[in-house]
C-alpha cells in the first residue's frame, strides 16, 4: 500500500471578481514507503500546492480529490485536532527558505525540542504554561530529554558541534546549517513522510549535494519517505527513486527515475531533459522549450502543454488520457493512446523551433507547419 495515495486532486483558489484559479487540475500522486519521490515541474506548475494540500494548510483553497489517503486513511475526513497530530508527528515539512521558516527569536535547539515535546516520546509537559515558561523565561533545560533529543537530531543531520549549535539563533548559522536544522526539526516527531519543498534551491551546489546526501541517508537509514519538490532534474537524478512530472497543474509523466531519464515518454519530459545543460564549455545559447507555461486561467482545453508541444495534434484538445508505458511508468499524452506509433518528437529540430515553426507529422503522415507560441 502506498504511504500517500492521492487521486484526481483538484485545488481551486476562488478569486474575488475574477475567474477561479485552478492551481492543480487532476493530479495523481503516490509515495511508497521508504522511497524518495520527486515532484518536478516549473514555477507555477502546482507542485508546491499539491504538496501543501497534504498538510491541509491551504488557506481559502477548495481542495477536491477522488482519493486522498495517508496510510490508507482519508486525510480530508479527519478532524482539525487529528490533523494537528498528523502534522509534525506523521508528516514533517521542510521549507525552501530556512531563514524565514525558522523563528528568528528562538534558539534552534528550542525549536527542535518543541517539536519533540509535542510529538516525540519524551515525558515532558507541553502544556501552555510550561511552554510559555520555556519560551519567555528559562528556555529548555539542556538536561531535559527533549533538548538532548534535539542535540541528537542535529547530530543525525550532520551538524558538527550539535550541542553548541543548539544554543544558537537561526541568523548565526549558515544557509546549509539552517537547512539541516529544518530537517532535524521535521524529524523531531519521528515522521514517516517528509515533504521537502525545494529544500536546496537557496543553496549553492556544494552545500546542496551535502543536503541531498543527507536526505538520501535519512531515507535509507531511518525509514522515512520523502516527497521532494524541485524544479531541478539534476536533483531528481541524484536523489529520487521515482518521479512525477507536473506541468501547469497536471501530471505529465510518472516513472522511476531510471525510466524517466532512459526512456522519457512525454514530449514535455523530453523537452526538459533536452534543456538540461551538459557539463563542459558550451558556446551559444542554452536549449529551451519555446514559449512559457499558460496562466491557470488561460489553459487550453485538453493537454495544457499542447500550445508549446511540437507533436501536438487534434486529439490534444481532448481530456488527458492515461497511458501505461511500462510497469511503474505512465504518461498522459495522446500520442500514445490515439496513435499506433507515437514516433519521435521533433525536439531535436532546434533551428525550426527557434524560428517559431516546427515540422510535425499529423494524422495523414504528411509534414505540416505548426505554429509554436513564442513567449
Amino acid at each position, binding site marked *: 500500500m502506498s504511504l500517500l495515495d492521492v487521486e484526481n486532486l483538484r485545488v481551486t483558489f476562488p478569486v474575488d471578481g475574477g475567474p477561479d484559479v485552478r492551481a492543480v487540475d487532476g493530479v495523481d500522486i503516490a509515495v511508497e514507503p521508504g522511497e524518495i519521490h520527486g515532484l518536478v515541474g516549473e514555477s507555477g506548475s502546482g507542485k508546491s500546492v499539491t504538496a501543501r494540500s497534504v498538510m491541509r494548510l491551504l488557506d481559502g483553497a477548495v481542495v477536491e480529490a477522488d482519493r486522498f489517503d495517508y496510510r490508507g486513511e482519508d486525510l480530508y475526513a479527519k478532524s482539525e485536532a487529528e490533523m494537528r497530530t498528523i502534522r509534525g508527528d506523521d508528516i514533517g515539512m521542510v521549507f525552501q527558505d530556512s531563514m524565514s521558516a525558522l523563528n528568528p527569536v528562538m534558539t534552534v535547539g528550542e525549536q527542535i525540542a518543541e517539536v519533540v515535546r509535542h510529538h516525540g516520546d519524551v515525558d515532558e509537559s507541553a502544556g501552555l504554561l510550561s511552554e510559555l515558561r520555556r519560551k519567555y523565561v528559562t528556555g529548555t533545560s539542556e538536561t531535559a530529554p527533549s533538548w538532548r533529543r534535539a542535540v541528537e537530531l542535529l547530530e543525525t543531520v550532520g551538524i558538527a558541534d550539535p550541542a553548541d549549535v543548539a544554543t544558537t539563533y537561526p*541568523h548565526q548559522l549558515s544557509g546549509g546549517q539552517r537547512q539541516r536544522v529544518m530537517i532535524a526539526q521535521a524529524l523531531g516527531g519521528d515522521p514517516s513522510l517528509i515533504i521537502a519543498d525545494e529544500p536546496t534551491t537557496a543553496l549553492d551546489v556544494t552545500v546542496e549535494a551535502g543536503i541531498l546526501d543527507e536526505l538520501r541517508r535519512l531515507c535509507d537509514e531511518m525509514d522515512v519517505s520523502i516527497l521532494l519538490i524541485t524544479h531541478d532534474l539534476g536533483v531528481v537524478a541524484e536523489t529520487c527513486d521515482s518521479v512525477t512530472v507536473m506541468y501547469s497543474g497536471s501530471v505529465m509523466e510518472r516513472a522511476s527515475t531510471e525510466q524517466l531519464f532512459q526512456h522519457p515518454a512525454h514530449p514535455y519530459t523530453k523537452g526538459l531533459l533536452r534543456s538540461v545543460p551538459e557539463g563542459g564549455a558550451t558556446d551559444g545559447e542554452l536549449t529551451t522549450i519555446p514559449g512559457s507555461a499558460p496562466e491557470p486561467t488561460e489553459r487550453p482545453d485538453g493537454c495544457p502543454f499542447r500550445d508549446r508541444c511540437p507533436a501536438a495534434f487534434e486529439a490534444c484538445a481532448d481530456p488527458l488520457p492515461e497511458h501505461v508505458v511500462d510497469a511503474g511508468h505512465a504518461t498522459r499524452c495522446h500520442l500514445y493512446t490515439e496513435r499506433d506509433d507515437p514516433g519521435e518528437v521533433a525536439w531535436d529540430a532546434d533551428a525550426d523551433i527557434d524560428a517559431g515553426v516546427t515540422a510535425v507529422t499529423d494524422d495523414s503522415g504528411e509534414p505540416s507547419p505548426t505554429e509554436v507560441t513564442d513567449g
Partner: protein
Amino acid sequence: MGADYGGYGSDDTTRLFGVRLDRFDRLRETLTGDYKATFGLTTVILFVLAAIFAPELAPFDPMAQEYAIMQAPSLSSAHPFGTDSFGRDLLSRMMYGARISLGVSLVAVTIGAVVGIGLGLVAGYFGGVVDDALMRFVDVLWAFPWLLIAIMLVAVFGQGVWNVIAAIAFAYIDDFARLARGEVLSIREEEFVLAAKNIGLSDTRIMIEEVLPNAVAPLIVQFTVLVARAMLAESTLSFLGIGVKPTTPTWGALLGQGRSLIGQAWWISIIPGIAIVVTVLGINLFGDALRDAFDVRGEEGSP
C-alpha cells in the same frame, strides 16, 4: 567553529533555581555596557526601593504637620527637601507619593498592555471579520476621552486608587492593540508561522508562543513610554483633584499643591517635578536597553 556563536556555549552554564543564566547574558551586557541603560536601571531601582521601603526609610510621618516650620526651604537642617505649606516633610511625602505614582502607572499600563496586546494579537492574527470587529471596538475606546472616563468613574464610584488605574488602563488599551496588531500583521505572513502550523501547533499556541515573542521589542518600548505617560496622567488627575484622595501624597498632587506657592516656596512643586522627569527618563532608557536585549537579531549595544 563554536567560537562563531557569540559565546553561547553549554559547558559554562550557571543556573539559579534551575534557570539558565546565560539566557540573561545579553540583558546583563546591555544594561551594564551602556551608561544610559545603567543610569535608567539604577534610577528605576532606586525609586522603586524608595517606594517599597517608604515606611522604614521616611524620616517623618508624611501626614504629620508642624506649624512652626511651614514652608521650610530645602536643605534646612532636619528636612532635606524642605516642608510644604502645612509643615509636612517633603522628602517623606515624596517617598510615600512614589508608591502611588509608580504603583498606579505600572499596574494601569500592565492592565492596558494585557488587554490591548490580547486584542491586537487576535485581530492581527486572524484578520478579516475578527480584525474588523475588534479594531472598531478599539476605535471606540480611542475616541473616548480618557479624562472624561476618569471624571465619570470618580463621579460614580468616588475617588480611589482603582478608579485612577481603571481610567488610565482604559486609555492605553488602544495604543497596545494597534501596535500589536500592526506587528502581528507582518509577522503572521512569515514562513515560520506556516512552519509552526506544519508541526501541529494550534492557532492559540502559535499566537502566544511563536508570533508574540517576535513582537516583544516594540511592545516593551511602548510599555515604558506609556508607564512614563501614565505617571504624568496620574499627576494630571491628582492635579485636577480627581485622582486618589486629596490628602494622599502623590507626585502629581504635590506638584499641584505647590503650584500656587511657587513664588514663596519653589521646592514644593519643583522637587516632585524633577522626580517625575527623572523617573520618566530612567524608565525610557531602561526600556530601550530591554528592547536591545530582547532583539536577538539586532546589533549588540546599539542605542
